[in-house]
């Protein structure tokens, strides 16, 4: 079994962004204030990042498919 093709650096970096936003940075945003529409800041932050997560993956998807197309042409 030969190893799978490595994903592009750009796609990997895009994937790290939501990990930074939702996971490693927890100490920075785990607060109740400022509340937005009455909802605690940490909840608003996470829900916002869920949407951004899809955006990042969409970017990674574009990068990966373009690369595969280029490779197919060679």
């Amino acid at each position, binding site marked *: *079994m030969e190893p799978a093709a490595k994903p592009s650096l750009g796609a990997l970096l895009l994937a790290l962004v939501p990990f930074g936003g939702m996971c490693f940075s927890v100490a920075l945003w785990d607060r109740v204030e400022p509340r937005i529409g009455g909802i605690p800041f940490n*909840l608003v932050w996470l829900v916002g990042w869920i949407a951004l997560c899809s955006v990042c*993956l969409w970017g990674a998807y574009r990068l990966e498919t373009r690369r595969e197309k280029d490779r197919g042409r060679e």
Partner: protein
Amino acid sequence: MSPSAVALTTIFGLVAVGTTIGFLAGMRRKMDLEQWTVGGRGFGVIVVYLLMAGEVYTTFAFLGASGWAYSRGGPTLYVLAYLPLAFVVSFFVLPQLWSVARRFGMQTQPDFFSVRYGDKYLSAFVCIVGVVCLLPYFQLQVTGLGIIVSIASFGGIGRTPAMVISVALLAAFVLASGIRAVAWVSILKDGMMLIAAVAIGVGIPYLYFGGIGPMFTAVTHARPAHLTMPGATKNLGHTWYITTVLLTSMGAYMWPHAFASSFTAKSGDTLRRNAVVMPLYTISLAFIVFAGFSAVLIVPGLANGDLALLTVVRRSFPPWLLGLIGGAGALTAMVPAAILVLTAATLFAKNLWRPIFAPAMADAQVARLARAMVVVLSLVSLWLAIYSSSTLVSLLLLGYAGVTQFFPGVVLGLYWNRASTVGVFAGLVAGIAIATLLILSGRDPYLGWSAGFLGLCANFLIAIVISGLRRYPVHD
């Protein structure tokens, strides 16, 4: 009719509709092993999507996450983070997995280990660990069903008889219909669940506090520390959050059933596109968490947080609505439970019993053994559910600590051709040993770190070091 009769009739009505859809979807197809377990590998984009979404939304999300929001508070936020991140991880693992699965005709998770590492003991070990970890996940669904039926009966039906009824229904459903039926019942289940989540998450704060904002104001005043980490706990702080989110996001697709569900897709591109859209699906979980936080002030002092959501629903809504929400919850337990028990039974028959004890077994016999195992595993989980007092979330985290240990073997196996059988096997055993020892001795989290994550670190380290020491790749 009494309130309990209305609620219970509605629940059983919904379950009956779901089961009928399942039976209809399963009819007119010859039920051989392949058809029963992987739907004959003919699933289109929509069915795969339904199957994967169906696996995401389980009783764990419905009763477990709200229960944790009620009893633990802030640490529950990990649920909102790990699912989207699990799809990020899947973006880089599932398409690659899919293409090797197609090339080598893999059907199950141990098949991957057997093809990549060429060792039947490693794949048998993966199989055993997989089945053992599926049990608490299955038990979680059975416990959830018991809670739903007993609350909807206003205490008229005890939890144990409720669980017995649920398990009997579930086993009958799985035996009669197989994986395709399960995927189609998911439509009903997910539709109902989304409506229920919004109705509860918006309706309950509105009824008692006049809106979601005022509800949070009230909770902040009454329990200032509840909404951030560590909330009502002593040891679930930020380190626990980071290590648990990492563990569970890497582990989500290491569950044997989730792993294999990617094999049913038509192309690797489908799986990538799925990963882009799926995070949005988890936003609805926030509503369930809202309901859990509201319950803190509406029904304080419940001994078991898992009861919080439905207790509030019962107090706030008319019996028919309790029945609809309970019915949605019941389907939300039954669909994943069916997938789980089907996977565990097939793994046992196909990847453990046949290769180790009965190599001459025909496919038809394996199928019969798998069906018998559905009954056996259902009974084991029923017994576990009756005699265990764990909360739903801790049951899930227990399974996660185990299945995530497959992650190094899968990722290194896919991307690094020097990853060796000895290295991966040693890492896996070490990871599981560390996680199990820490959890069973009550040391999870250990110094603030998730025990499963500590096991995973050791696992990765050992697998990489031992594999790196070998001069040549063992397999090519």
